């Protein structure tokens, strides 16, 4: 089979990209794969999922940057120093803070990979407690605002005390 890019050399790389159920087949030679950039990693390890991911990132970041005027290229994780460019190249994060740093770039990619952007599974027992309490606090705050708006200050004060109590719990645990 001849490479579909250059139509000259024999195709040595054959793979199928499936994005949202849409299949695209690729038959290309190593030379063209390299030309296209990032399809083959620098090592001889072969084609990997990380390279596909960065492809997805690239596409989205390009679009986003134009719309929001965000210089995604300049983002850098304050904790581990990973830059956006490095992240794209590796297709992997450097530390847990990277998820906040590159948050705006992630949703479209996660949607493509997982069909979803939010976790709905297990919560860690200890940290999970805190998350539950935090959610509860947020709910109580909303209720309190409502009471205030309705000028039911006595109930609002009760809610405020509950919130303080829970806040104390959170700060003790962390």
């Amino acid at each position, binding site marked *: 089979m001849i490479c579909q890019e250059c139509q000259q050399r024999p195709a040595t790389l054959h793979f199928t990209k*499936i994005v949202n*159920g849409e299949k695209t087949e690729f038959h290309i030679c190593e030379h063209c794969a390299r030309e296209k950039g990032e399809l083959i990693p620098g090592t001889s390890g*072969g084609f990997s*999922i*990380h390279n596909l*991911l960065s492809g997805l990132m690239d596409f989205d970041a390009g679009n986003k940057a134009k719309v929001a005027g965000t210089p995604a290229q300049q983002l850098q994780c304050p*904790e*581990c120093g*990973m830059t956006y460019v490095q992240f794209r190249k*590796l*297709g*992997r*994060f*450097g*530390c*847990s803070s990277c*998820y906040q740093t590159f948050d705006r770039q*992630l949703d479209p*990619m*996660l949607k493509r*990979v*997982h*069909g*979803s*952007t*939010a*976790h*709905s*599974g*297990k*919560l*860690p*027992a*200890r*940290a999970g407690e805190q*998350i539950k309490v*935090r959610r509860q606090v947020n709910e109580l705050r909303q209720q309190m605002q409502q009471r205030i708006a309705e000028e039911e200050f006595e109930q609002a004060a009760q809610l405020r005390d509950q919130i303080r109590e829970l806040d104390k719990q959170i700060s003790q645990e962390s």
Partner: protein
Amino acid sequence: MPNLRFTEKPLSEWMQKGGDYSDVVISSRVRIARNLVHQPFPIIASTEQAQQVRERLTAALQDEGVQAQGPFEPLVLDELDDVDKEVLMEKHLISPNLINDSRAGAVLLAENESVSIMINEEDHLRIQCLYPGFQLEEAWQRATAIDDAFERVVDYAFDDRRGYLTSCPTNLGTGLRASVMLHLPALAIMNQIGRILSAVSQVGLAVRGLYGEGSEALGNIFQISNQITLGLSEQEIIDNLHSVVMQIIEYEQHARSRLLDESRLRITDRIMRSYGILSYATMMDAKEAFQRISDVRLGVDLGLIDRASAGQMNELLIMTQPGFLQKTFGVKMGSGERDKYRAQMIRDTLSDVHVAD
């Protein structure tokens, strides 16, 4: 001196005991990825940082809750020689990644090898439970209990919205990869494998060979695993995989009974020929070995041969791998010599056990 027990015996418990549907399902595996908070992920961590992570996680073994899940024996990768590492990989207890790309890598092994916990692989912690036969739920229950035990003593990187944070976004959320290793010889013989596997990939599952990512499906062995880790609960992921595998089992069993009905003589001949070649050949490459072993295993499962057992065939799959051959015969070998030793290993194993267990 690291404990060599794990590399000397060929059989892990997952290969010996049957489990459900063991005529089709070789093993069920669940792996969960976890990371420590405020520690760079292994791909960019310095050697000192990686060592810190290893120390912290090995120290967690002292905790009562973790001990109750074990006991686990820590093996430090740098203290093992190359052959031992290869053997652990061939037994599916560690990944090629841990051997090649990890700094300060280690593995915590349970006595019966049904649990292996890799440290500093792509993520800080990868808890893997490997059970014989079709036991996905059991493997998941075990893995999540071990996860809980670790979580009591170390702080995980977890985000309210994104879930468990992993180095690669493909593991994000639950960090859960569940997979089932299937032996599908009848579907392969009847040329139905392609159709089924492409259907599988359309429902968000991936198909791979015996040794995971990038490996060829030798010996009609296929690994089917979930791709999606985010947005579904762990139970949904396990249940989805379970129901798809259940259907594949039915197809395979149906194909087997058709083989018996329609071409009993032909299939018996094929199985006996393979048994004969395995018993007497003096050279055998890996590809042929896999195919012949697959034939004989099918013969055992169909009740057409009583001179071999399924456990024996599972054992041979591992024992004919390069690392294991080198370990057993104690010589460094090129691929030509390896074919000689592989044939010898197979002959010895088959003549050793005449009575099926």
